[in-house]
């Protein structure tokens, strides 16, 4: 329990101190150390859960099993990488006069609050508190999306806030339906909203209310996870936010929304005897399909990456819907791989956009010549995200396709292969144009701040290693995570 307290307090205290600090260097170092402390606490909790099973406490408010610990660790890991990246990125913005020092402190305060809200979502037992946490992530990150205060950023933030809140309101309605059936089975008590109790009683819940509840929650949390057709806010918000925030939004916030959805799905699928899976398969495939035209005609680099996030959330949802040991394993492996590859890609793209002073892909050429290190990493990350071998996403996508064939979802798997291939071609068309060729004479040949490059190392290593094989520790972790969703076994 002390560990959990440290996990919550580390980002809160870091944010507050970074906010009141008077020196820029001190603020930067302090927040990086704070992010490292959060990561250490998350790592400790993950290993405690890995070896000792689920953590339970604080009058049943806190519940951390393998799935929670997996999500917490991912949040802290990407959070740490993005906090390092923020230093170099924000120094550049400060030097360019885009932001002031007081805005910088505001940024670090809200950045760590944002990490805190995501950690809360993953550590609570009650579905009601899960909802409270997810709503808080929207509220805090909407202010971060609006950070630059330009017209486009404000438009994106407003859309995000309103669409996110309405979606989430429907999820609350769904949670009430689930609570209602919980009360009927477990009696009028606060535990009737606890995930552990609901899962244990899932066989005895009323199927029709659970079904209505699940559909509302699917729409609500699906809005937050960027599942089509509720994804319209996502490309705006993810492209207008400062790049480190884009990386966190795409890399872990979407996972956190899916985390909420999958928790409810575990209950609903047991109650409905597997009937809930078809909804996930439908929304998953639809999300992948809808990104195809948008990626093909895209002009804005960060928007293209945002649409790619919609695609990958679709793949994860689809894979959970396919289910079975292999499907769930593939889904969570993909979740991990996508977080690494997408944050790496956003980091590299952010540095590129800063150097070229544009997000328009037409105006970016010859990255490899002007920025050899960042350019190479950008190319690797782009190959990884489109599912080219020998990088990590290739392995998880193959696993998901295999799962589809194995569980007699041949058509689904074939559609998936076709769509992924088209998206690969569409994205590579733009990436190749940007990476190769002559660089314009405007861009001087300098590498960026060391902080921005150091931040790339963590995800880069994992993207490359996990392309060859899944390390045993990760392999076992993901098996444990997928058993959580198979119900019962904990």
């Amino acid at each position, binding site marked *: 329990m002390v560990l959990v307290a440290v996990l919550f307090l580390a980002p809160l205290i870091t944010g507050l101190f970074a906010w009141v600090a008077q020196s820029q260097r001190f603020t930067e170092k302090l927040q990086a150390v704070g992010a490292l402390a959060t990561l250490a606490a998350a790592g400790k909790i993950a290993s405690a859960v890995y070896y000792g099973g689920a953590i339970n406490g604080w009058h049943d408010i806190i519940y951390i099993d393998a799935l929670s610990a997996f999500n917490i660790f991912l949040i802290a890991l990407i959070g740490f990488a993005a906090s390092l990246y923020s230093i170099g990125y924000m120094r550049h913005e400060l030097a360019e006069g885009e932001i002031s020092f007081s805005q910088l402190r505001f940024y670090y305060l809200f950045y760590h609050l944002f990490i805190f809200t995501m950690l809360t979502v993953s550590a609570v037992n009650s579905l009601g508190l899960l909802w*409270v946490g997810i709503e808080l992530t929207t509220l805090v990150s909407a202010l971060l999306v*609006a950070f630059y205060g330009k017209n486009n950023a404000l438009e994106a933030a407003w859309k995000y806030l309103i669409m996110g809140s309405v979606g989430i309101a429907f999820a609350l309605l769904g949670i009430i339906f689930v609570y209602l059936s919980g009360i009927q089975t477990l009696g009028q008590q606060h535990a009737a909203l606890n995930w552990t109790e609901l899962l244990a009683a899932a066989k005895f819940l*009323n199927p029709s209310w659970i079904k209505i509840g699940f559909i509302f929650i699917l729409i609500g949390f699906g809005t937050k996870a960027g599942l089509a057709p509720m994804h319209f806010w996502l490309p705006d918000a993810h492209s207008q936010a400062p790049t480190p925030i884009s990386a966190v939004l795409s890399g872990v916030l979407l996972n956190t929304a899916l985390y909420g959805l999958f928790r409810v799905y575990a209950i609903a699928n047991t109650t409905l005897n597997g009937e809930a899976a078809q909804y996930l398969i439908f929304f998953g495939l639809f999300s992948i399909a809808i990104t195809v035209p948008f990626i093909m005609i895209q002009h804005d680099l960060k928007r293209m990456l945002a649409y790619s996030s919609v695609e990958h959330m679709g793949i994860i949802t689809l894979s959970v819907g396919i289910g079975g040991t292999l499907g769930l394993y593939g889904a969570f492996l993909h979740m991990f791989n996508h977080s690494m590859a997408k944050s790496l890609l956003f980091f590299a793209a952010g540095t590129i956009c800063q150097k070229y002073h544009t997000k328009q892909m037409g105006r970016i050429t010859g990255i490899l010549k002007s920025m050899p290190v960042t350019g190479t990493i950008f190319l690797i990350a782009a190959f990884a995200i489109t599912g080219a071998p020998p990088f990590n996403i290739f392995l998880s996508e193959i696993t998901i396709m295999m799962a589809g064939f194995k569980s007699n979802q041949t058509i689904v798997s074939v559609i998936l292969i076709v769509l992924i291939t088209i998206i690969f071609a569409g994205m590579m068309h733009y990436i190749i144009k940007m990476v190769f060729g002559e660089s314009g004479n405007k861009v001087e040949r300098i590498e960026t701040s060391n902080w921005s490059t150091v931040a790339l190392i963590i995800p880069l290593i994992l993207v490359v290693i996990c392309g060859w094989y899944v390390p045993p520790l990760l392999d076992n972790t993901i098996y444990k995570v997928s058993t959580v969703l198979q119900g019962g076994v904990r």
Partner: protein
Amino acid sequence: MDALVSAGLLFSTLWLFKIRKITDAVGIIAFQSALLALVAAIMWYKTGIEHLLVAAALTFAIKTILIPSILYYTINRTNDKQAVERLSSPHVSLLLAILLMAAGYYVATDLRLPGTQHGEHYIASSIILIFLGTFTMIEHKKAIMQAIGLIVIENGIFLITESVTYGMPLVVELGILFDLLVSAVVIAVLAFRIHSSFDSLNTDKMQNLRG
């Protein structure tokens, strides 16, 4: 009593489609929230579940006093032309709202919810509030009115929790109210910044991001 409160909620929501000034909408949602607090108190009286009383007091403090004050302050400070702007004419929008009300009643009679011995009067009202809140968000062009629509939806959901499930567990209820308060502050902050950047709160001007 139940019927009276339900009628109050429904007519106040319909009134949203008649108003000319945005500040009137703030008054309407304050009135609705006061009725919600009353519903929670009624449910406490009927069932004796104590935390409903806490919920009633907090609902009154946060949803009836704090949030409307924040919104009122925002509207006044942005000095926007306070007239509402709709997509369709007031009569058409009132007509559509009434149609949605009928649809809401129809849905409610089809819904067989458990534990409704005390709350059955409110189910139809809450569904109608959710419908009309959504309609408000689509119908109005002012950014603040979208926030009002959101609050009406939330009121509908509150009504269901209080009447059908007799509130949520207290910790959750506190969390939800805290979220609502924070969201009102965030809405106010963004509205101020939108107003100073766009010189207006009309969402027609915010159509730059596409594709």
